[in-house]
């Protein structure tokens, strides 16, 4: 720190506190709404302090869900969790295997595989909505966990990150393990994977959040309540006239949808930041 005047030292604190308050601001109203009754929220302006219906609203949201929705937050949380875990674990496994092959083996088509994976960066779901929908429907995967997960588990970012890490592993280790009689898969399982713990953890944080927060894809392929994820459920609860919406239940569900990924980011902040900034290089 090069500045020593008192004003220069206090300024950043003031600015940062103000920004933090502004950033948390929208969240506060959602929380207040989730502790109030529907009537209290509709009597504009809504009260600015939490009410007494917290337990009532959350238990209703978790066990029953909003009326006419047909899915409880508990079911939807389960679906979001299965989707997030499926996507993150699937991506990591598939990418580790592919990166291992691309870095440690010499085979025809290696370059081709690398570029084929690279090109997926340029084809996000958003730009090929209809045909992807048709593929999933032809395969009979509408309203299924496989349909929610499979198309999402290709990740150029994960392959790049693991490839980059594998390239930094000294080849002498691979050679030595061969001389000692270990097969290439034994090398992968008992030497390479334990070394890759840190990048795997980073990828997990990023991909778990990515999976949990998927919206367009589940919106396209889930029409049955038992496959609704939290975000789809919230969307359905909020469609309709303002007076008919059960705001207190919807807002409780919004908080339930936010808490798991936010906890993951806060607890694994170091891995998260490392993962984000490493994939850039």
């Amino acid at each position, binding site marked *: *720190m*090069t500045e020593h005047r008192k004003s220069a030292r206090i300024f*950043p*604190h003031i600015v*940062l506190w103000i*920004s*933090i308050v502004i*950033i948390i601001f*929208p*969240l506060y*109203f*959602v929380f207040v709404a989730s502790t109030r009754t529907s009537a209290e929220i*509709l009597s*504009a*302006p*809504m009260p600015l302090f939490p009410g007494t219906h917290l337990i009532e609203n959350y238990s209703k949201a978790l066990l029953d869900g909003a009326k006419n929705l047909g899915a409880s937050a508990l079911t939807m949380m389960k679906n979001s969790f299965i989707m997030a875990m499926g996507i993150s674990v699937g991506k990591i496994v598939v*990418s580790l*295997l*592919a990166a291992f*092959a691309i870095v*440690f083996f*010499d085979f025809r088509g290696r370059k081709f*595989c690398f570029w*084929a994976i690279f*090109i997926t960066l340029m084809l996000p779901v*958003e*730009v*090929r*909505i*209809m*045909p*992807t*929908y048709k*593929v999933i429907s032809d*395969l009979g995967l509408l309203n299924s966990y496989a349909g929610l997960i499979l*198309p999402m588990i*290709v990740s150029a970012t994960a*392959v790049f990150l693991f490839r980059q890490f594998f390239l930094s592993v000294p080849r002498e280790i*691979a*050679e030595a393990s*061969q001389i000692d009689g270990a097969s290439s*898969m034994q090398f992968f399982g008992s030497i390479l994977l334990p070394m890759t713990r840190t990048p795997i953890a980073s990828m997990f944080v990023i991909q778990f*959040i990515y999976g*949990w*927060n998927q*919206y*367009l894809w589940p*919106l396209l392929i889930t029409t049955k309540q038992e496959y609704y994820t939290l*975000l789809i459920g*919230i969307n359905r609860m909020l469609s309709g006239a303002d*007076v008919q919406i059960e705001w207190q239940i919807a807002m409780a569900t*919004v908080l339930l*949808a*936010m808490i798991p990924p*936010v906890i993951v*980011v806060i607890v694994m902040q170091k891995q998260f*930041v490392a993962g*984000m*900034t490493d994939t*850039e290089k």
Partner: protein
Amino acid sequence: MSKQYEFKTKGLPYLLVLPQMVIVFIFFFWPSAQAIWQSFFLQDPFGGRIIFVGFENYLKLFQDPDYWASFTVSVAFAVAVSLSSMAIALFLAVQTNKKIRLGSFYKTMLIWPYAVATMVAGVLWLFMFNPNVGVIAWVLKYKLGVEWNHLLKSNQAFLLLTLAASWKQISYNFVFFLAGLQSVPAALIEAAAIDGASPVKRFWKIIFPLLSPTTFYLMVMNLVYGFFETFPIVHQVTAGGPGKSTQILVYKVWRDGVINLDLGGSSAQSVVLMIMVIGLTIIQFRFIERKVTY
């Protein structure tokens, strides 16, 4: 790399890349090829009849004033979100990087919105600005005399979308700017300070130029975010309205394909979007190779 040790097992590498390749082909290449193929046909959504029409879907698209309106609002939205969230994030990263007390607390408090789904960010802001129940909408109306109704006024709808999308994106930019700032050598800054450069001058003459690779990378990523990843916010907050005034390109593809069942038109739009993503990706990689630095 060629002199490096490599495993010789035949067949095994193919088995290892197989799962990835199968998914890439079924869920990426095949649908993309379909989009290109379908963009040259007219299809009756109820029967199976398809007619080859050549570039007609594209011609119709480019002659459609709705499409150009959608294009313009997408560019305006992506630029507004990128500039505002990057400027705010850079400012906050500079403040956090001053080695102050509570530094890591501030960092956590500014990073967590990254974990919030884009759609949820939309709901958070929608709830404050809902014309009937929103607290901010109420304050605007009864205390400040501003009639807030983003369901009727398109400039308000645009503003609300920009607020929600930027709120979410600040944390992403903050992480990268902070990492960039931390890699600026302290000795350089101290030397400039000794030479009498003011903090403002030090920032613009030394720190900001050194950050240019990060800034450039973020510019591209933010434009991609603004163009493509903000579908959930638009879908939740305005549904493209009022009228079609906030119908960004991605939202239009979805509406024309899924709701209006215009396969040919939607596919032609998909192809145009693909070309845009490819363009942005190429620009990004060219510059990353050259590394925009001094």
